[in-house]
């Protein structure tokens, strides 16, 4: 998620709008760099001090200022003392809303609350808990990062809420969020105050499951024989609740007709069989494709509650199934680096 700090325009400048946007992005980048240098990196729980909350008027604020100026000119021209009153109250509201806007952020506590791993291509949801320890409510708080932002929430006194920053992912591996911001437009959207945070935030991105994967290698029994039917239908072991992905052939339809509850048949034969997914056996594919295929197999097989083992250069996981095993194997694939040396 690192953005170029000093983006030079690639194409020659044509329109003034482009000039302005390029200028503003340069200024923005420079300001961010300055803030980073000034603030240093932040701990996982950071309280926003007044020194790091920045503020600038919004477009509406500029129009408001222009309007106040026009009204001041009008009042001076007509020498009308009541319209002076109105003008000065509006100017006063401008000043007050500036301070209110800044104070709406100062003192908030932000904590990185983790991010669940996703497959490459999906958006990783970075969770950040924002706590309002003060006696007054905070309104219209929003987190943002480059190209993404969270929903807007209000925080009651003493309340803590988890904000979600959806971050698009492209490649597997660790994705880190160098910088994110928290901002507010409260009260009148005349000013925008914000703070930049540089926390150590990262999330895991698994390889994207391959769209078209070859058939997984055949299931072997515990004795090393190829099993004809991986599901071992001869030893009926019982019923369990239906899970998405269970074969319709295993649904106990009779039970469904009786009780209206979807149940799957369990067979004892399965637990003696297992599959080995081997990185090296996937010949003819490059590293990323192999990882994708392996991911697909793991995801699909784990759903069927069959045991599977994983062999990648430098690591081997004995056959098993279930959430910890799935996570461990997928994490290995996500962080796989052995391919380079080959």
């Amino acid at each position, binding site marked *: 998620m690192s953005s170029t700090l000093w983006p030079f325009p690639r194409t020659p400048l044509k329109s003034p709008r482009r000039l302005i946007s390029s200028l503003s992005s340069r200024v923005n980048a420079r300001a961010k760099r300055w803030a980073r240098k000034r603030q240093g990196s932040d701990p996982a729980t950071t309280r926003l001090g007044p020194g790091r909350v920045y503020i600038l008027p919004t477009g509406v604020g500029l129009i408001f200022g222009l309007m106040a100026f026009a009204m001041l000119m009008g009042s001076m021209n007509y*020498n009308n003392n009541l319209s002076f009153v109105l003008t000065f109250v509006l100017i*006063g509201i401008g000043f007050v809303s500036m301070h209110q806007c800044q104070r709406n952020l100062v003192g908030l506590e932000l904590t990185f609350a983790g991010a669940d791993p996703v497959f490459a291509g999906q958006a990783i949801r970075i969770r950040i808990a924002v706590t309002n320890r003060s*006696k007054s409510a905070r309104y219209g708080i929003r987190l943002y990062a480059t190209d993404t932002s969270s929903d807007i929430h209000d925080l009651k006194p003493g309340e803590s809420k988890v904000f979600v920053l959806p971050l698009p992912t492209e490649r597997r591996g660790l994705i880190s969020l160098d910088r994110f911001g928290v901002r507010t437009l409260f009260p009148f959207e005349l000013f925008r105050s914000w703070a930049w945070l540089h926390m150590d935030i990262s999330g895991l991105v698994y390889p994207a499951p391959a769209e078209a994967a070859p058939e997984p290698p055949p299931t072997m029994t515990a004795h090393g024989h190829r099993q004809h039917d991986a599901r071992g239908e001869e030893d009926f072991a019982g019923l369990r609740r239906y899970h998405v992905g269970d074969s319709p052939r295993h649904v106990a339809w009779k039970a469904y007709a009786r009780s209206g509850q979807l149940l799957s048949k369990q067979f004892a034969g399965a637990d003696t069989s297992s599959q080995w997914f081997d990185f090296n056996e996937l010949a003819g594919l490059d590293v990323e494709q192999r990882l994708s295929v392996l991911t697909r197999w793991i995801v699909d097989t784990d759903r069927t509650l069959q045991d599977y083992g994983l062999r990648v250069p430098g690591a081997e996981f004995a056959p098993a199934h279930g959430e910890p095993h799935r996570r461990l194997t997928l994490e290995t694939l996500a962080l796989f680096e052995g391919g380079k040396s080959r």
Partner: protein
Amino acid sequence: MSKPRGTDGSLLASLPWTLAALTISLVPHVPFLPIWITAAFLGCAGWRYVIERRRRTLPSRWLRAGLALACFLGVLATYSSISGVGPGSALLAVMAALKLLETRKRRDQFVLLFLSIFLVMSSLLREQYLWSVPYMALSLLVIMTAWLRMSAGESQSARQSFTTGGRLLLYAVPLAIVMWVFFPRLSSPFWAVPIDTSQASSGLSDTMSPGDITSLSMSNEVAFRVAFEGEIPAPRDRYWRGLVLTRFNGRTWSGREPSISRSALDQIEVAGEPVNYEITLEPTRQQWVFALDMPTSWSLRRTFMGPQQQLARMTPIDQRIAYRVTSHTEFRVGTELSELYRNWYSDLPDDSNPRTEELAREMHAAAGNDRDFVDAVLEKLNREEFYYTLEPPPLGRNPVDRFLFETRRGFCEHYASAFSVMMRSVGIPARVVLGYQGGEINPMGGHLIVRQSDAHAWTEVWLDGLGWRRIDPTAAVAPERIDIGASDAAFDGVGQSWGLTAPSRLVHQFKLTWDAMNAKWNEWILGYGPETQNSFMKWLGMDDPSWRKMMLTLVGLVIGLILLISLLLMLRYRPPRKDEAARLYWRFVKKTGLTPRTGETAHAFAQRVLKSHAAPGEAVGEITSAYMDARYGHGGESACSRLRVAVASMR
């Protein structure tokens, strides 16, 4: 263009407030706007609300364009111009109504709120009353609430928005007061803009046709207020000179456009003590400037004296103005009148009012000289059966003849006109002065109120050796009109004839109080101009106030106030104080001189303290148990006080 869809109801939370803000800001304009604009606004507002409520679609672009064109043409047709407060506020109202019909997104409402601020502003340009300030506060409160509603999330209730809006407004008030007091006032505007020319004038009429008016309305509106520096002159000296009518066509008296006369002031010879006073004149939309007969100096800029000693300003008075005047009640005007002017001031049209002319000639012959003739005419008006009435019968052709010989009923204009015609008939130069006479003293404010009902007409005749002499023929007929004043006379009459003396006196008293408040209001708030500001600055202790000094003070005070507000906000958003038990326990920890480790419980810490002999055993035990009780048990207040005593008594 995308297919029009129904609204999604996302504006339901904020739209009612926006509509309320617009409605409140439009209210003061309603009496001045053509009725169709108010109706159009209300219609559009209701329509828009129903659209949002029922998730209907907004009107099509063509319909909106058609409506916009129709409304714009309507405004143009009504006002025949688009500048000035009248057409300006009409346009604002129309724009608000039309903008409502295309308000789709939340943020479109910004425009509506800006419009309503402008509407409030233009209503203040039009009129400034005592209630304008509470009105302004109310409308700002609603506008700010609407503003907050517009950007509020779902969890924020309307009440929260209202209190937040009120709180921020309250913070802004001291800032506004400081800026208002110290912002340097200009003595002259940058450019002159007509305020509102569409409104009918409320001042005196420029001509006088006594036969045509059959009922003089007794308007109680204030014409001007006068604050005297010294004694208030006696009622018979309170002639407020306005304009002078010099030409008579047999029916109507008329004057000339105001023009500068350099010699007019030189013709005045004064005697006795000068009278210094300040007049606060309500807008008349005319150029005439009123002053006590006879003004010799005045503070109003771009104001001159005309050839008949009438004061006029270069531009119409379309705002309340205050000016200081010095007058002399004993004076003499003119020493010589050329033959040309003598003829001009005694000109009468041929074949009009023949009986009056004949009568005048007879009486003049009988009297012998001019002065005796004047006395004789006044004597005749006083002795014979002439009546002062505000509802005279109409006079046909030759109105003066009919008045003098037949109806004999009229008010000041009839008498002034008839008297002048009689003078002119025998070649005595005469002219009619329009202005006000009398005025009511307000004991609350110590000032004089002159109302429209005090409007008066009198005459000035040229007497050789005396110059122009003021002669009030009405005084000969109805002396009480001059000595008491029109409003007092009218008031007494009403009270007695209805038998309601006490309550109406009470009402009158209330009116006087209200008037006194208004006068102070005008003087201190509306009249806060360069001079008032200057003297106020001096009173505050600023020597030699200049705009630079005032600006510096303003900036300094504003910065100070902003710091104060910032502090207030800081207190508002500070984290709550640690609870009492934790605070007391912390004191105990400090006394032991040990530092608790992370995750160490109170009991573990107590063990460590006992081991290190940092504190007596019983005290540690008592403090720990009291703390645990206060913190986690049901001890509450009593445990807390136990803890307090234990910590305090520990050495």
